[in-house]
């Protein structure tokens, strides 16, 4: 036991000392995380060996052994991937069956889309107000550009496809499902019995049914109930199906967030005289949504990938058009290349969403402990 006299420093005068060497920095990290014992050292070496083997094989297939130039499948002789099919089919992957001479319209929509989405994602953008007006107008502009009329050649929505269709479905679904989900979540927690019952029924019905069923019903059964001659666009029906489906999931994610807000926050807002909608908009939802960002983005990503199911009702989204490409007799046995490319495109979209959500979580973190 040490007594006061054993100490090198007088009480109250102990200086801040640096940590012992080797416990911090790269060396400390390596020792602590990778080589902390004999067993762990062996596991580390085995893992590196495994990564080396797999990595080598992947690099050979994707890069060093792959064929990038040539016109036909006969050029692919090196044993790796035959990427020629991607180049040949690239336009279809992007635009589906959209008429070739009208691609420029889709391209304009892609570019405008970036400007329409940016202000929704970043609140520090200069002139954000003006951009937001543009964002609100964008859906109408995009619809006009893509479907035509009034001077532009009409393109049937059945011909929209590939990445274009996936983005249209995904973004519309995401943009629609969040507000609908919020309303459903608030409705489910409402004191008004009719509102609550309606919301519960809607959520439970939609969640209890597979998306394919909903798409199929929207596509094939809805026309049976509508009067003769009334006909919704097939794409519109798919859009509504996807949006309603994901809004039911969204509602439950958001309800989780609402329940995590302490009662004191509701009381604080009430005691100050805020109305119900003011306290929801200013106090409760900003906190609740921040808590469930991971869940919301999870639902977004799920929704984005679920759009591939529209191929069931005869729409050719990114995956649907890939299946057409795989069946092409000109390029035989190239399914791995095609699906790898499609997977890459999906991965880029979904990974971006995931990174954005992490960034947003960090930004909104105000160090609050309640």
């Amino acid at each position: 036991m040490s007594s006061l006299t054993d100490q090198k420093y007088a009480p109250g005068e102990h200086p801040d000392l640096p940590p012992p060497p080797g416990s911090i920095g790269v060396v400390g990290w390596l020792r602590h995380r990778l080589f902390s014992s004999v067993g762990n050292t062996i596991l580390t070496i085995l893992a590196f060996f495994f990564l080396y083997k797999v990595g080598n094989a992947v690099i050979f297939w994707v890069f060093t052994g792959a064929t990038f130039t040539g016109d036909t499948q006969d050029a692919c002789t090196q044993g790796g991937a035959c990427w020629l099919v991607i180049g040949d089919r690239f336009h279809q992957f992007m635009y589906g069956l959209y008429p070739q001479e009208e691609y420029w319209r889709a391209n304009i929509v892609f570019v405008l889309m970036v400007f329409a989405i940016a202000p929704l994602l970043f609140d520090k953008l200069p002139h954000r107000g003006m951009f937001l007006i543009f964002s609100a107008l964008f859906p109408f502009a995009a619809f006009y550009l893509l479907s035509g009329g009034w001077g532009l050649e009409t393109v049937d929505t059945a011909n929209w496809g590939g990445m274009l269709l996936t983005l249209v479905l995904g973004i519309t679904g995401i943009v629609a499902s969040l507000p609908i989900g919020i309303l459903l979540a608030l409705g489910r927690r409402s004191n008004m019995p009719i509102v609550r019952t309606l919301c519960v029924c809607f959520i439970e019905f939609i969640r209890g049914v597979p998306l394919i069923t909903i798409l199929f019903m929207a596509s094939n059964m809805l026309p049976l109930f509508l009067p003769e001659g009334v006909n919704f666009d097939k794409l519109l029906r798919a859009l509504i199906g996807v949006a309603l489906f994901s809004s039911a999931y969204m509602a439950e994610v958001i309800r989780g967030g609402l329940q995590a807000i302490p009662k004191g926050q509701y009381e604080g807002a009430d005691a100050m005289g805020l109305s119900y909608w003011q306290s929801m908009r200013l106090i409760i939802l900003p906190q609740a949504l921040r808590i469930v960002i991971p869940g919301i983005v999870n639902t977004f990503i799920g929704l984005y990938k679920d759009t591939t199911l529209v191929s069931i009702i005869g729409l050719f989204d990114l995956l649907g058009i890939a299946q057409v490409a795989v069946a092409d007799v000109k390029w035989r046995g190239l399914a791995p290349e095609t699906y790898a490319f499609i997977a890459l495109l999906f991965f880029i979209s979904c990974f971006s969403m995931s990174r954005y959500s992490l960034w947003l979580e960090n930004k909104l973190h105000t160090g609050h402990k309640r």
Partner: protein
Amino acid sequence: MSNTNVQTSKKTDEVAIQLKGVHKWYGQFHVLKNINLTVGRGERIVICGPSGSGKSTMIRCINRLEEHQQGDIIVDNIELTGNLKNIEAIRREVGMCFQHFNLFPHLTVLENCTLAPIFVRKMPKKEAEEIAMHYLERVKIPEQADKYPGQLSGGQQQRVAIARSLCMNPRVMLFDEPTSALDPEMIAEVLDTMIELADTGMTMICVTHEMGFARKVADRVIFMDAGEIIEENKPEEFFNNPQSDRTKKFLSQILAH
């Protein structure tokens, strides 16, 4: 506590709050039993009593955080009924500080203070910020205006909560155990703020166990037990000459240490 002289009462004959025969139940449990209380404008009232005696429930009925089932509550000549308009009107005029502060953690201290003036009173942002800074100076933390509540100590948070309520320029302030979640070091700074507030003539109802505060500031001390008002008296009388056995027992317990 900075000064020790007894505050002079600003009590007037005008009635600020009136509770007449108020009853409340939680399910089968009878929490408030025939509460009758009249609070004059400028009067400072301290409510004490053992936990579960209904003191918090009673003051939470005054701004309708809890609903009473029988009797009348009249605040500032407005009767508290199910009418949403009346409830919102009363809440605008009645400020409240909570045991756990209930600051909004996603907003800065300044935004916490300006929110209600801007959205409830429809005040221009600039004016609301000036008023907020004025009250933050009064509770002696103007330098924290741009921080988030999570970055402040408990005592600072409670002072922000007081400033936030004052920004609405309320006619009545309710305090629901404002110091019971605080470390001893921080209780004094909050009580000082409350004493200064009392000095300005604010009508105050405080649920608290700070008997020093009650002696110094209160016009009347009310003792509640099992949902009833057992005794009410001037502080000296209440502490030196309690009438009921229940009050004597409570005081002996609370003052024993």
